[in-house]
């Protein structure tokens, strides 16, 4: 017979025992209740706004809380147009919220505040003599990011790895100006120092002016030399509403071809030394792909044009250089699979031209130098060839060319067991390219350019095909391909078999 004390103990013990299952169920029920409550609150807010969406309101004040270091004049330009004092007609509630929302979006784009700028709306007290019955006050709450941040790390560019240290000083004068100091050393760029000062114009995050200075030294083993660069530039960039980005800038650079290897060819020795380039360039990008590394839909168009040394620009080299890059992707439906199969066909096309111009106000144009000519070939370019593997060569040095065209077609297939949601793909590709030097047509530059462009099509381009694996890491796209060159010209350097590529921008 159980004694009363034992029973009491049993009861006590059973109260103390924590039943795992019951706790779990309780927690789940609590979470569900919270979620339901939040849903209801959201729904209520939407109903409220919905039912009052055409309520006429006037915005009497906008307050930004938590922005100690932001300049008043900077914020004025952003918010003044929204204030009702500066407008003739009253808003409806939904219009007002939309306007303030877009202003908050622009604030976010400046990158001086942390994520999550929240917005509150309140009615001013009716006893306030300066308020009208339709007035609302808008409160924006933001948290400023740290002014100075120091970062070190590793970076992956096209076929290059580097380690860098970066100092970023944000919001220097209170108007989202930023100063960026960067020092890096890498496998190919032996040292690079860069300082950039960037500021938005008229409180518009889409319009920016930047001044930059650069000093770097890059190894170019495919042409047996090292190029040292020192220069500065001034750039203005803007973005249109449809998402196209433009950039116009002036750059002045002192280039030095130095550090020649022992077996450098005579042509590279001829081009060794200093040259100064003073040029104006324009870049236009329209990126409508749905993924930067393994797109299944959309297109990318990019053009870069540069004019150097002509007229008042002076310098030591004069040319007009133009480069075009397009790429597109279409999904391929597989008959047996419903919906998006994950298989896509991507294609890319690149072309460029270097047109020599007379220097300054002279009358005859100079031939191009190795610093300015294009290089073609490599794991991110025309696969199946070594870096700088295509084009004119002297001995083992790639001299570069003045006119090129390259294209590729890739079929990206998700692995059968892993599926299309992972960043891993199987790739089948075929790509081709042709890099030519301008022929000498006795001083008639236009004729020689036309003849060389015509020469692009007179025989098959150098091409290679193969298959491989693509991995789209958030930082870069990694590829491991097995390729075979099919057509080449004598002297061009091919890569039979495995080739590894890392980069941001693949053909």
């Amino acid at each position, binding site marked *: 017979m159980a004694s009363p004390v034992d029973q009491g103990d049993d009861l006590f013990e059973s109260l103390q025992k924590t039943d795992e299952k019951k706790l779990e169920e309780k927690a789940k029920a609590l979470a569900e209740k919270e979620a339901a409550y939040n849903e209801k609150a959201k729904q209520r807010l939407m109903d409220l706004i919905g039912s009052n969406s055409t309520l006429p309101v006037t915005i009497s004040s906008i307050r930004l809380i938590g922005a100690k270091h932001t300049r008043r004049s900077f914020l004025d330009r952003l918010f003044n147009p929204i204030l009702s004092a500066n407008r003739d007609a009253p808003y409806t509630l939904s219009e007002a919220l939309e306007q303030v929302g877009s202003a908050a979006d622009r604030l976010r784009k400046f990158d001086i505040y942390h994520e999550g700028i929240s917005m509150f709306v309140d009615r001013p007290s009716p006893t306030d003599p300066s308020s009208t019955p339709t007035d609302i006050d808008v409160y924006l709450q933001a948290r400023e990011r740290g002014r100075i941040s120091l970062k070190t790390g590793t970076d992956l560019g096209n076929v290059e790895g580097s380690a860098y240290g970066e100092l970023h000083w944000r919001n220097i004068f209170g108007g989202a100006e930023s100063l960026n100091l960067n020092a890096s050393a890498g496998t190919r760029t032996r040292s690079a120092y860069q300082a950039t000062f960037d500021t938005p114009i008229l409180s518009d995050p889409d319009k920016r002016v930047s001044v930059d200075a650069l000093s770097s030294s890059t190894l170019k083993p495919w042409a047996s030399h090292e190029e040292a660069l020192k220069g500065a530039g001034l750039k203005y960039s803007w973005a249109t509403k449809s998402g196209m980005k433009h950039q116009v800038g002036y750059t*002045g650079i*002192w280039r*030095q*071809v*130095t*550090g*020649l290897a*022992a*077996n*450098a*060819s*005579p*042509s590279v*020795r*001829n*081009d*060794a*030394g*200093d*040259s*100064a380039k*003073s040029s104006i360039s324009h870049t236009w990008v329209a990126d409508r792909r749905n993924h930067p590394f393994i797109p299944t839909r959309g297109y990318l168009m990019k053009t870069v044009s540069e004019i150097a040394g002509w007229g008042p620009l*002076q*310098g*030591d080299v004069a040319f007009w250089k133009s480069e075009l890059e397009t790429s597109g992707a279409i999904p391929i439906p597989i008959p047996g699979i419903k919906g998006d199969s994950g298989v896509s066909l991507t294609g890319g096309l690149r072309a460029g031209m270097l047109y020599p111009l007379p220097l300054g106000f002279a009358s005859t144009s100079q*031939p*191009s*130098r*190795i610093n300015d*000519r294009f290089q073609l070939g490599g794991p991110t370019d025309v696969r199946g060839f070594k870096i700088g593997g295509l*084009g*004119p*060569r*002297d*001995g*083992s040095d790639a*001299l*570069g*060319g*003045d006119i090129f065209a390259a294209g590729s077609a890739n079929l990206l297939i998700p692995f059968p067991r892993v599926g299309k949601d992972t960043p891993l793909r199987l790739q089948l590709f075929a790509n081709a390219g042709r*890099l*030519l*030097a*301008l*022929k*000498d047509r006795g001083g008639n530059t236009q004729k020689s350019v036309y003849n060389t462009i015509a020469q692009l099509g007179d*025989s*098959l381009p150098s091409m290679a095909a193969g298959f491989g694996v693509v991995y789209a890491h958030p930082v870069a796209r990694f590829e491991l391909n097995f390729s*075979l*060159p*099919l*057509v*080449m*010209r*004598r*002297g*061009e350097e*091919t890569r*039979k*078999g495995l080739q590894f590529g890392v980069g941001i921008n693949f053909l």
Partner: protein
Amino acid sequence: MPPTNSAEDEDTSSPQTSFSRQTSRVRDFFSVPAPVKTLFNSVPILTYPPNDLPQRALKPTRVPILYVFSTKEDAAAGRPSFNPSCLKWQAFLNIAGINHRVVSSSNHASPSGSLPFLLPASASSNASQESFKPIPSNKLIRYAKEHGAIIEESTSMRYEAYQSLLDHRIRSAWLYTLYLEPKNFSSVAYPLYVSSTSSNPLVRASISYQLRAAAEAELLKQSSIIDTDDLYSEADKAFEALSILLGDDPWFFGNEKPTLFDASIFAYTQLLLDENMEWKERKLCRALRRRENLVQHRERLLVRYFGGS
């Protein structure tokens, strides 16, 4: 005792063979498998003739090319270079009778980091990589001997002593008067060494600064301070010693033909006595002009090997 010998042989040889067996197995594992090899051998399917070279590329030459500091026009005409070490070897090749072309260049093009260097002729169209190897100045004597020149080399102690006069005293005075005398720098060194590198004033200013700093560093290697009077007086004494050495002979050390030493002397006398150089601070030039036989030595070499004044 044969049996033990053979036993020893077996012991020493069997580990070797098993080791070599293992390495060859590893090598086979990493080497290209046979079917892939046949695939590699069958590509590329089509090979076209090589691409044409750009206009600035150097066409293969039959005549060796000497890269020196010079102006384009002077180099085309074969006139003396304006740099002593380049002029020394240019005169040497002329004396040795080696036919060559002269091209103006800069320090960046040289395999040793400084001019001059010689690019040998590519004899045939399918010349191997060897023929493209440029020859730096310290191997030029051997190159000249290989190409049929008869070089007399004096190795006496006197020769070494006088060579050191040139390399230290006269060279220091030359460096000072060319780079560190402000009037001379702007009228002689700037148009010759700096203007030819680039047309941009910022680049030119940077290169001028680098040249002057390098000259100063070079002079500070010899002594802890730069004393101009001391430098000039040492050079004057060196010129006197050389003048006494030459005496009434046409060439140094009583030789019948000029040698490398004559070329070394000529490198400095030509540049100091040449009116086209436009020296403004002429102290060193005057010191040289006082030694009549050195002036005549220069004229003799100029007329005989550079075709007149």
